[in-house]
């Protein structure tokens, strides 16, 4: 029983994380942790945007020229 809960809880945590990612991406905000992990893995020598900078950059991008702010009627 206890063991089952142990198995379940990472699953639940993953579900919660995915739900949050979905809600954020619905309004055009990608996952910051994914971004940070990607940067440190591929460009460890280059500066990484902070969470706040990332938020502002993505927000401006969504509604800027050639951004993804396009939605249907």
């Amino acid at each position: 029983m206890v063991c089952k809960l142990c198995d379940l809880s990472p699953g639940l945590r993953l579900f919660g994380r995915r739900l949050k990612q979905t809600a954020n991406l619905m309004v055009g905000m990608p996952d910051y942790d994914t971004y940070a992990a990607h940067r440190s893995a591929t460009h460890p020598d280059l500066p990484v945007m902070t969470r706040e900078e990332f938020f502002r950059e993505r927000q401006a991008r969504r509604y800027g020229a050639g951004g993804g702010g396009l939605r249907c009627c």
Partner: protein
Amino acid sequence: MSSAQASGKNAFNWLLWLAVSVLGAVALGVVALSRNEPINAIWLVTAAVCTYLVAFRFYSMFIGRSVLRIDPTRVTPAYRHNDGLDYVPTNKWVLFGHHFAAIAGAGPLVGPVLAAQMGYLPGTLWILAGVVFAGAVQDCIVLFVSVRRDARSLGDMIRSEMGEVPGVIAMFGILLIMIILLAVLALIVVKALAGSPWGTFTVFATMPIAILMGVYCRFIRPGRILEMSVIGVVLLLGALTYGQTVSQTPALAAMFTYSGETWALILIVYGFIAAVLPVWLLLAPRDYLSTFLKIGTIVALAIGIMVVAPVLHMPAVSRYIDGTGPVFSGQLFPFLFITIACGAVSGFHSLVSSGTTPKMIENENQIRMIGYAAMLMESAVAIMAMVAACVLEPGAYFAMNSPAGMIGTTAVQAAATISSWGFVITPDTLTQIAKDIGETTILSRAGGAPTLAVGMAHILSGVTGGRALMPFWYHFAILFEALFILTTIDAGTRVARFMIQDLAGIFVPSMRRTESWVSNVVATAIAVAGWGWFLYQGVIDPLGGINSLWPLFGISNQMLAAIALTLCTVVLFRMKQQRYAWVTIAPTVWLSVCTLVAGWEKLFDPTPAIGFLAHARVFGAALDAGKVLAPARSVVEMNRVVTNDYINAIMTAIFMALVVAMLVCGVISAMRALSNPSVTTKEVGGGLQTV
């Protein structure tokens, strides 16, 4: 697994799919064949869901495997260009949510409500057939084509696969459809909020709430979108509740009661200001609010319909398939097929499918689920809108959706007129419905949103709250649609501005500088003037505006779908998959025929309610005779009506010319691909030939 087990599982699978198919066929049979007896909405929903399941399992799999030859081993743009920002390999469920939120809008909620005047059957059949064979096919194949081309945009792909000229034609078409779309959406808001202090107050309240959220999210708790959205929703519900007090306090109610014309001017000024403000202040926070409210409302409506299982009072097929209906004029063919655009097939989705989604897809084998299935979900939203409209008494439906010029402005006149059409209703019932939802009148509130709101209030009050909560549900539905549309107007004006700067940049290079204030303001003003002009003429239109603008919007949206499907067809020919090209050729031909026939009738039909030129002739003749026809009150207004007719006619002619030009270009490109023995697609990466 042993082979016996495997074959057992296989047999079970086939039995399951057989059961789903049979259930769907039975439900469709009930929906299609019951006459003179109201049916339960659950039949409609069951028929739709079974259709979607079978279509997804079989037709979309055929498209993926045989037509597109999906290759799960190919690297997608998300991996090739992974930057953690635009290009990010994303879990398919997360991406499904993103894609669905981007394609679902007010369109699928409005079209079916208007189409309900012909009964629930014609619209439902078109929504189902349209999505399976046209809408979802378009979304899915455009997504595929874009994924194989580094997630490039529709315009870009038309240029590279078909040539420069079709590229410019498509770009011009996209700009025009934006302008018409914004005008018609703004008109829906005007129709819903004119003379409604409760609705007006709550919509006004969304602005300070959004600004508060914007400041919170930028300075106080940067980036906490979800936290801020929860606060925003709570504040919105507070404003919604206080709206009732406003509507019941005469002094306050007078402050928030505006005529249609005033609302049009407010929206035009608002559209301009909102589009030049920094995005974080108003647009972004309101976008968050409206997106979450939209998803929440769709879920609530779905639960409501399943729990309440309402009965449809609208007949299966009404007498208005003959084209004399009060909501929109014109016969079932072609006008039903352009009235329901989103929900069956929407050209606009081709822009979304070639926008952000292809940059995030992990594997080609997810294209089917994201491109095809998300569109099936959108179609389900359209079915729910159809249900919401048809649960109303037909008399009430026609009272809400017929122009004042036809049914008069009092409940007594309206009830008498509508009863004489064969939809018996008493003046008391009309007054009582208005009272139930906390409004003074429900007459002539065309545009879909109020009808949907009454239907939703009807369904949701059956789940909780009963009649006492009906006014809240009604105004919640109005608020949700208005909020959503205002966001689209704001974001759409920006998109139109960038397009105008791009196009104008060809002649005046300095216009292209998006950081220059002068070029921004000029391009924004052009965009707002464009849709504002159509909006204003729609508001003062004697036939209610929706009557002339919605067909223009439908024609332009289907035109864009035909353009996107033409591109898909050309790509199939260039891939040497032409033996399967009927998958895209069939919907292209159908949409082209519908748009061209509808366009032709809008131009040349002798009935003034349908043909723009015939309408112009009636008013022109009256002008020559020195008469003033209602609702014009002066010679100046008479002249304006005539001018509007000619401009609408010119727009229609332009749309028709665009479709024909694109079809010709498509045929030429396909023939060229056919005569070339080798594969000529310009794909990026993968095993296929790149040119």
